[in-house]
């Protein structure tokens, strides 16, 4: 580790202010060629700002960037690209209406105003094949791809630029465990070839698996940089939040198997995507839905909320069979379902409207509630500790974690009998996750049935009382109690029969 060459990238006393907010405050940071450097911190700690400075999207208020020991000014993303600094942002940067091929060629070196050159395309196709994206067609419109597929295209796009420094900002947040493994293999290969990698992730096991060095940020400052393994999980969390978090996940209650059934679904099917799914959620239970991406678990949740046409099967809420044909029907007080969609920015919230208006949107249609009553929201907002500068500010002014709190509070105002959640903690910092876990468990204790789709198997194990794993549209395993282990979940997601006992009949 005693490298006498200057670091590939060095930042000296960097500050970035947005008005009165100091997103970064006097940060020194360096990244060497041939290392994977993980950057950890809560939302709002300054990680994304740091990455945007490196990518040339933002310019520092004070301080100096150096590449190979030379002072540089990165005024545009093109400047950064010229120095080999390539960023894959957590907000997907693909053009939805163009094809995969066109997106890959956008901004490719030498494209400019001249002819498009397809030379990089075969590399991109190789990368896609290696990370499990072989079924993505080059001619497909990006808008028609699933979220994970789009992330795979983003990764291919970044790698085909042959970066010297590759920034992965929540690059794998929508990908399932097996695809993540393949992406990591590729990243390690790039590292061994001398590429520096900056890696941002909220999933600790990913950092554990990939990083060589770790830097922790908090409130716009770098707290510490250390070799992986120098600090354990608990110590790192303490560094990130600046205080002790005793338990990430709340305690599971015992003996729920006799409680009354709140949500009972029988033989739910939809086209070829969901096949004969039956499950029930009892009072007080949090039931998990796992599986690789696109195995029907997402469609199943949407179907319960009345978003799919021609779905078969019966749904009973609190013993009453209900025909749920639209979200409007689903949220009616007689049924009281709530659905937190996968993409909070485009499906969960109206970013241009104020926090208050977003909070009221679901309650407005309920005749038994007064949507203007602040008391409907204040309880859950207090409990979730929403950080905001005023409820009349646009919801887009909030950080990702706080936006998700608004989505939750908006639905909790309706006092749902059953809460359907599609990956609610994706791309969210540890502290917010803990707050969300706590409120979910508390809701469950108060009698709300909770159905939680998650791509993070720690949630499926630690938070859920029972987890159903989907494969090819059907439930292939239902795990509870001692059966809930990472091995069993992974085996089930791949549909390999390592544990016959856990197989669904």
């Amino acid at each position, binding site marked *: 580790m005693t490298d006498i060459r200057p670091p590939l990238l060095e930042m000296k006393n960097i500050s970035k202010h947005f008005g009165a907010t100091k997103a970064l405050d006097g940060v020194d940071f360096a990244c060497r060629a041939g290392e994977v450097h993980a950057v950890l911190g809560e939302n709002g700690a300054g990680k994304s700002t740091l990455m945007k400075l490196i990518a040339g999207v933002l310019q520092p208020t004070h301080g100096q960037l150096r590449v190979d020991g030379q002072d540089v000014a990165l005024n545009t993303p093109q400047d950064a690209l010229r120095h080999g600094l390539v960023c894959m942002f957590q907000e997907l940067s693909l053009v939805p209406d163009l094809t995969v091929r066109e997106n890959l060629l956008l901004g490719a070196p030498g494209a400019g105003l001249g002819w498009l050159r397809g030379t990089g395309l075969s590399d991109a196709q190789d990368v896609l094949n290696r990370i499990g994206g072989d079924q993505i067609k080059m001619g497909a419109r990006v808008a028609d791809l699933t979220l994970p597929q789009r992330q795979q295209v983003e990764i291919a796009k970044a790698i085909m630029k042959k970066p010297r420094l590759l920034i992965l900002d929540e690059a794998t947040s929508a990908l399932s465990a097996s695809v993540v493994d393949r992406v990591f293999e590729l990243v390690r290969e790039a590292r061994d070839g001398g590429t520096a990698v900056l890696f941002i992730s909220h999933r600790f096991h990913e950092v554990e698996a990939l990083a060589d060095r770790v830097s922790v940020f908090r409130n716009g400052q770098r707290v510490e940089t250390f070799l992986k393994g120098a600090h354990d999980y608990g110590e790192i969390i303490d560094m990130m939040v600046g205080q002790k978090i005793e338990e990430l996940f709340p305690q599971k209650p015992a003996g729920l198997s006799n409680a009354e059934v709140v949500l009972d679904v029988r033989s739910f099917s939809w086209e070829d995507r969901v096949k004969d799914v039956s499950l029930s959620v009892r009072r007080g239970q949090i039931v998990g839905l796992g599986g690789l991406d696109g195995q029907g678990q997402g469609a199943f949740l949407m179907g319960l909320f009345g978003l799919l046409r021609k779905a078969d099967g019966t749904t009973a809420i609190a013993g009453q069979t209900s025909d749920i044909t639209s979200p409007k029907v689903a*949220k009616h007080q007689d049924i009281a379902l709530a659905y937190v969609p996968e993409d909070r920015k*485009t499906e969960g919230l*109206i*970013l241009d409207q104020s926090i208050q*208006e977003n909070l009221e*949107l679901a309650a407005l*249609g309920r005749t038994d509630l007064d949507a203007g009553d602040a008391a409907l929201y204040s309880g859950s907002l207090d409990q979730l500790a929403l950080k905001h500068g005023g409820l009349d500010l646009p919801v887009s002014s909030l950080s990702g974690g706080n936006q998700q709190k608004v989505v939750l509070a908006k639905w909790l105002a309706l006092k749902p009998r059953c809460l359907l959640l599609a990956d609610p903690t994706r791309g969210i910092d540890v502290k917010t996750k803990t707050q969300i876990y706590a409120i979910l468990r508390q809701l469950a204790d108060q009698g709300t049935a909770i159905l939680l789709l998650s791509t993070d198997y720690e949630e499926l194990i630690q938070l859920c009382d029972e987890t159903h794993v989907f494969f090819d549209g059907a439930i292939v395993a239902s795990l509870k109690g001692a059966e809930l282990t990472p091995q069993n979940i992974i085996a089930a997601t791949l549909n390999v029969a390592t544990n016959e006992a856990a197989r669904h009949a």
Partner: protein
Amino acid sequence: MRSAITLDSLMPFFGVVVLILAGSVFFPQVLSAGYLTQQLQIAAFLGLLATGATIVILLGHIDLSVPWVLTGAAILSTALVGTGNPVLSAIAVPAALAFGALIGVINAMGVAILRIPSMVWTLAVNSMLLGLAVLNTGGFNPKGQSSPLMVAMASGDILGLPISFLVWIAISLILGYVLTRTPFGRYLRSIGFNEKATFLSGVSTPSVLFVAFAIAGMCSALGGVMLAGYANQAYQSMGDPFLLPTIAAVVIGGTSILGGRGGLFGTIGGALFITLLTSILSVMQIDDAWRNIIFGVIILAMLLFQTLRKGAVA
């Protein structure tokens, strides 16, 4: 909470004041009460159309069927009055409004159910209405006349204020209340910003689209009825010159063409501004070609000013 009167929506009112002051330098009679009340009377026709257009544009859609809904309503109402039958004469105005609502519902069907872009669907509806009108009248100006009610609405006055203006303001007030104080208004803006998120919040977005397009159709139809009252007849293509000024009035009034942002207060200013601009340019007896160029330049300048101001804030 949210204020209906924003700086954007005040802009056209400043523009109106500037126009009046600048116009009065060349033509002192611009400042006379007679001229100004006449402008209010004429602005009401454009204003009613723009009121309906605002509602559709807030949704993030557009209604290009305005010209022939207007013409159709005018033909229908004058034809009913022209029969001489007192019952048919009495229902002329309600029938024209029902016609507007019906076309609005047809517009909404294409947009909400068939999911065809409103720009294409409403243009096709406009074209079909044109065809129907020609089939019906053989291409000649339709026979018929206006009822006293229609004439009064277009040309009468109460306490010196034109009735057309009062009708326009009353409808703006009612719809303004609906837009700012009811769930329907909230849904309308929410759909304009993000239809998917609104639907996922348990809002029946198709019903909102239906109601909004129906209101817009009725506004266009009322505009047609009053124009027929003003001219004491209906004629082919009477709505054609109104389409672009209608959209310009909405946008100058600070309503985003992308949906969600804006309101009726600004539209009132926008309609007044465009009416006054047209009038002053024609009073100045400038060549038609130059008049069109100046009209375009001033509207571009207004929009550019708003865009630049927003850029400075952001």
